């Protein structure tokens, strides 16, 4: 492959990976803190896209959708946490699988009911149409924007987590939330905040990817397993792991079709299996029960 080809594929990998981070960060934060395996996370991402679609249809303004839709998803995520996950704290976290599976199914039906099953798409804002010449090759402007937003959000969160005690509170709560509470931190509020934040990020990813990709009720299922795989590869509950995992999978998606065209759909699972066989708790995770 020529040098510009490799460079372009690498950029593609970075872009695909960083965009996935928006989805995986929420998933990993929610897991890391609450031990909640959130099957509905993909559905929140999907709702981001559909809310975005509606806002664009109503206002005709893509930027309004970018702002409003994630907040709506955040609100909904908050409601879900408040009304259904909160009463389950202290129970075997396995039951969250059942709960969030229920939400995933319900939201799938609901979205089909409200917006219909046909494939839709959010129109690219005119400001971000076209391509940019990057010397070696040209690249769609919207995708660069996507990359920029993802990097900015990832970095901002990273700084916020380092600066604040958020990450520590999260890890401590995963282990013993009662003790964290007794030491003076309102764990329930933090939980809700984490869930809302995770939902907002998923919603944001929904609007952004709903613009460069198809919007249909199947989009939730198609992202959730990939997102889980990434989170597991990185190590559950680890922010760094979610970012690195997404990056690795992005690269895999980018270079896979070139080097192993017959096996592209198996690569993700091969990678996940390989990582877990060598590091049974993912790249940056701590083994359960240890």
């Amino acid at each position, binding site marked *: 492959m020529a040098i510009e080809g490799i460079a372009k594929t690498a950029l593609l990998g970075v872009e695909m990976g960083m965009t996935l981070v928006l989805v995986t960060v929420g998933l990993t934060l929610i897991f890391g803190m609450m031990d909640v395996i959130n099957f509905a996370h993909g559905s929140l991402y999907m709702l981001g896209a559909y809310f975005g679609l509606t806002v664009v249809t109503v206002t005709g303004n893509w930027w309004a959708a970018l702002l409003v839709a994630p907040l709506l998803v955040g609100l909904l995520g908050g409601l879900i946490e408040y009304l259904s996950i909160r009463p389950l704290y202290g129970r075997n976290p396995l039951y969250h699988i059942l709960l969030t599976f229920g939400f995933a199914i319900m939201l799938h039906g*609901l979205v089909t009911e409200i917006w219909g099953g046909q494939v839709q798409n959010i129109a690219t804002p005119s400001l971000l149409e076209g391509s940019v010449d990057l010397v070696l090759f040209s690249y769609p402007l919207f995708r660069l924007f996507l990359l920029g937003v993802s990097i900015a959000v990832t970095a901002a969160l990273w700084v916020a987590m380092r600066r604040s005690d958020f990450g520590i509170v999260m890890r401590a709560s995963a282990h013993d939330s009662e003790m964290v509470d007794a030491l003076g931190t309102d764990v329930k509020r933090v939980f809700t905040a984490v869930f809302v934040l995770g939902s907002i990020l998923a919603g944001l990813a929904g609007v952004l990817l709903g613009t460069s990709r198809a919007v249909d009720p199947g989009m939730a299922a198609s992202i959730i397993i990939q997102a889980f*795989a990434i989170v597991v590869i990185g190590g559950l509950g680890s922010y760094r792991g979610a970012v690195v995992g997404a990056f690795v999978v992005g690269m895999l998606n980018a270079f896979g079709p070139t080097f192993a065209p017959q096996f592209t759909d*198996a690569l993700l*699972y091969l990678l996940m299996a390989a990582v*877990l066989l060598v590091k*049974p708790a993912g790249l940056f995770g701590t083994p359960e029960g240890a």
Partner: protein
Amino acid sequence: MSVKDIVGRHFSARQQTDVLSGRVRVGLFVAGVVAVLFAPFAQAVHPFWMDLATHMFIFALFALSLDFVFGYAGLLSFGHAAMFGAGGYATALLIQNATTSALVVLPMAVLVGAAVAALIGWLSVSARGIYFAMLTLAFAQLFYTVVFNDIPAMLLGLEAVTNGDNGLVGITALTLFGVDTGSLMAYYYLSLAMLGGMLALVTRLANSPFGRVMQAIRENEDRVAFIGYDVDRYKIVAFTISGGMAGLAGGLWVPFNSTATTAMLHWTTSGELIVMTLLGGMGTLWGPIAGAFLVVFLEDSLSAIGNWEIYLGIVYIVIVIFAPRGLAGIFRTVRSNPDPRVLLSKARSALATYREKVFS
């Protein structure tokens, strides 16, 4: 002496600590009798009830296989579809190319399921908890892509083995001692017998010295090694046994639908299985059977409505919030307080607890 006494005495000779207590055994026995009598009744009223019931039995068997490793030994497998599919495809290929005899086909389905499980189990046991689940998921999905892309055909240079996304279709019925099992009623009884037999076997396993070790592993894996057990070996054996049962369920499923398809292997099948198990009440053996019955029934009866998933989802959500231990928990509460007034007040207090937890 009433039947109940005889049954009760026979089944409850053992200690209270047995898996499936005497009371539950009586209940299961009665349920079994009802199931046996149901077929002629259905035949007279609406024969397709038998079809639905058979569907329930097969998934109940499948759910039972998961509960054995998950509810009982604490190994959350997110890859049981692999064994279900392996047993199913083995059955389809045998019926198409070799024999329709159930006495050959079903044992082979068990063996193939067990072999796949042994491999996956062997590779996965070093991971724990969710990581174990994800590792089994990864292997199952790999298996799915192998079947979906018909890699065996590619390797063997044949035109088709698994036949990719079209699956293997037109699989004829099994024969048992030369008798065709293709009728609704024959297959109903065959599946019921398999479910009953496997439930008896699993109960036995659970109450065996081996079963006790599995239970210990679920509770405190770390300590089990320090009293002298090779934990990984026990886990692999349990996973293999469970895989054999899942293979059997797959082996029954394929002739029932006359198809073997990739959907059997997809992660959503594993996910649905976990839902059945949790909904029914994990670790009780009979709970997941009830869970499978409920899910199959709901899916069948709701599927004539548009966007029926909305309602199915709501049912799951409500059950998980208000019935912490699933159907088994509801059943236990009802049994211990048969008085409707007490039950009503229980329900009210469940609502109050909910309100308190949410709004405090």
